[in-house]
């Protein structure tokens, strides 16, 4: 009785709330890139609309492209003209402004509250259109449409699929009167945040299902760490692991059938794999040290985890079917919280040097370790689905804030936040298979 009361009082389930009412994160550029390709994005023509739009498409696209580190968007004050169609463009003006690429567009009203967003990406030097599309969207989907435009532009110019139109999940802690822990999902620029779960007790370690429809996470709602799975659209949730001791660090296998997790029911913290359908459990590591933070390789064949079996936390790899673990990191006293790039070639991690905790990446083939960040308390690295960016949490004052850094380490941008302490970001999968 007491449990169920606790459950009711402590947990408030909220169905996904749409719209921009929860937009609480804003982008702040912290470091730019020399050698990024110059591109101009002209504000889209909205003069044919009956009312003002809640989101500015060109601003969202510009912010996305800047964040990639590959492109550098011309400041609005530097625009030599305001064309909205390719036939209005005088290419010599844009060439003189030093731009390689130009984006023009317009938004048209359609019946039933729909909009038609049209854009064209132009090559200034070749003086021709590279791509042009018309995207239908309702008011709620305007931001998503803008991110899709960013993806199309990014892919056309770089040849790599864009990952702007995906979602991130993270934990927001509030310390006002009472402590509150909020699991949220948001767009990759931090806007459009939606609350998945709110609790008076800690929430931790969100992990996306590979189809992007569910999250696994750790909740202390029953006064100890247990693992839950929650379907985002329906808010239906179930406890999947509540063994004696700790139940933590869930990580979904790429095929969505298994969950790697950490249990201490048989002694110390060890890595297990649970079939999410049958709940059948198999033990992967048996070591008296701490084994935790499992993550799957993209092909599902191996799992990288943190262990202190050598005396300090280091990364190890083990076959998903079990066997002998192989040590991967040798540089530094503290390497933990791995994430594997989608192509399997690099591993991002928390790396400590001289008492500072930074995000680093290990190139597997060469064994080279590169530090990507410059703060002192960075954690929770998570690759974008195209492997080009790493999302992570840093600490500023008493609060955690989210950053993205390009994998070449040259571009770093902050998703700044006005309320609460944000931590444990995880980048979700692509919305659709390509």
């Amino acid at each position, binding site marked *: 009785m007491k449990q169920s009361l606790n459950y009711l009082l402590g947990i408030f389930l909220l169905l996904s709330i749409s719209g921009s009412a929860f937009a609480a994160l804003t982008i702040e550029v912290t470091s730019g890139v020399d050698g990024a390709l110059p591109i101009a994005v002209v504000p889209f023509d909205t003069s044919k609309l009956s009312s003002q739009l809640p989101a500015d498409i060109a601003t969202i696209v510009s912010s996305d492209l800047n964040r990639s580190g590959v492109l550098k968007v011309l400041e609005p004050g530097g625009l030599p003209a305001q064309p909205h169609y390719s036939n209005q463009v005088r290419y010599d003006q844009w060439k003189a402004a030093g731009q390689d690429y130009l984006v023009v567009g317009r938004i048209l009203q359609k019946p039933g509250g729909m909009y038609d967003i049209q854009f064209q990406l132009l090559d200034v030097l070749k003086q021709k259109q590279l791509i042009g599309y018309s995207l239908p969207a309702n008011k709620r989907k305007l931001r998503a449409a803008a991110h899709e435009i960013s993806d199309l532009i990014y892919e056309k110019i770089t040849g790599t699929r864009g990952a702007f139109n995906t979602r991130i999940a993270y934990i927001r802690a509030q310390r006002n009167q009472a402590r509150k822990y909020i699991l949220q999902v948001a767009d990759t620029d931090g806007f459009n945040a939606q609350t998945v779960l709110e609790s008076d007790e800690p929430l*931790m370690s969100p992990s996306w299902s590979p189809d992007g429809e569910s999250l696994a996470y750790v909740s202390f709602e029953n006064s100890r760490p247990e693992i839950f799975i929650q379907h985002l659209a329906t808010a239906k949730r179930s406890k999947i692991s509540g063994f004696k001791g700790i139940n933590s660090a869930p990580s979904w296998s790429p095929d969505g059938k298994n969950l790697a997790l950490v249990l201490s029911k048989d002694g110390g913290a060890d890595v297990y794999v649970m079939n999410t359908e049958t709940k059948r459990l198999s033990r992967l590591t048996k070591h008296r040290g701490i084994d935790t933070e499992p993550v799957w390789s993209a092909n599902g064949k191996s799992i990288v985890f943190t262990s202190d079996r050598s005396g300090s936390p280091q990364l190890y790899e083990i076959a998903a079917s079990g066997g002998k673990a192989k040590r991967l990191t040798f540089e530094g006293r503290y390497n933990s919280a791995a994430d594997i790039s989608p192509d399997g070639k690099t591993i991002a991690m928390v790396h400590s040097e001289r008492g500072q905790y930074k995000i680093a990446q290990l190139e597997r083939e060469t064994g080279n370790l590169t530090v990507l960040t410059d703060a002192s308390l960075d954690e929770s690295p998570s690759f974008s689905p195209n492997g080009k960016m790493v999302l992570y949490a840093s600490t500023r004052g008493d609060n955690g804030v989210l950053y993205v850094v390009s994998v070449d380490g040259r571009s770093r941008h902050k998703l700044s936040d006005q309320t609460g302490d944000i931590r444990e970001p995880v980048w979700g999968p692509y919305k659709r298979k390509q």
Partner: protein
Amino acid sequence: MKLEMTLKKLHLLLLAAVFVSACQSTGDQTTLDDGAPLNDGQSQIDGSGTLDGSGSDATSFDGGDGGNLTPIVDDANLSAQQMLDRVDSPLATRVIYFDFDSAKISDESLSLLEVHGNFIASNGNVSVRLEGHTDERGSREYNIALADRRAQSVRRVLLFQGASSDQLETISYGEEQPAMLGHDEAAWGKNRRVELVYNVN
């Protein structure tokens, strides 16, 4: 009072020494230093059997140095709750602190835990939740495991003192609930801890 403390100290030191040697003699799977979890419970120390805990060989002290007389309250007449409510009692200290990335219990903490262990062992109506915590550094999930290990280290000492496993519950909060905010050793040192939360039934 002073006399009592000296006696207690001697007694505890002996116990600690015997305990550590006992741990070492059972192989490194049960050393206290790294707080490693026991492997499949095979070599669990429960304080019954291997030691009698009386420490009777070590009572060759030569008395107090006289002078100030402090009245001693007869603890035997106090309820468990009254004992816990006494602010001058060692039982009033209910936080054990740790070094960075370590679950090793210091000698000082060991002495304190002996007192708690004895108290729990002789008061069957008392139960304790051992809440493990870490500082903010490093990764959150690793810290969950580290804080769990700290709570298990404390649990093992209490079990060794005769507390029953039914009386002890461990929970790990990792770095999620700091005692003090801040990004320096002053705060970190306060956050690397196990809190003993008593419940008198």
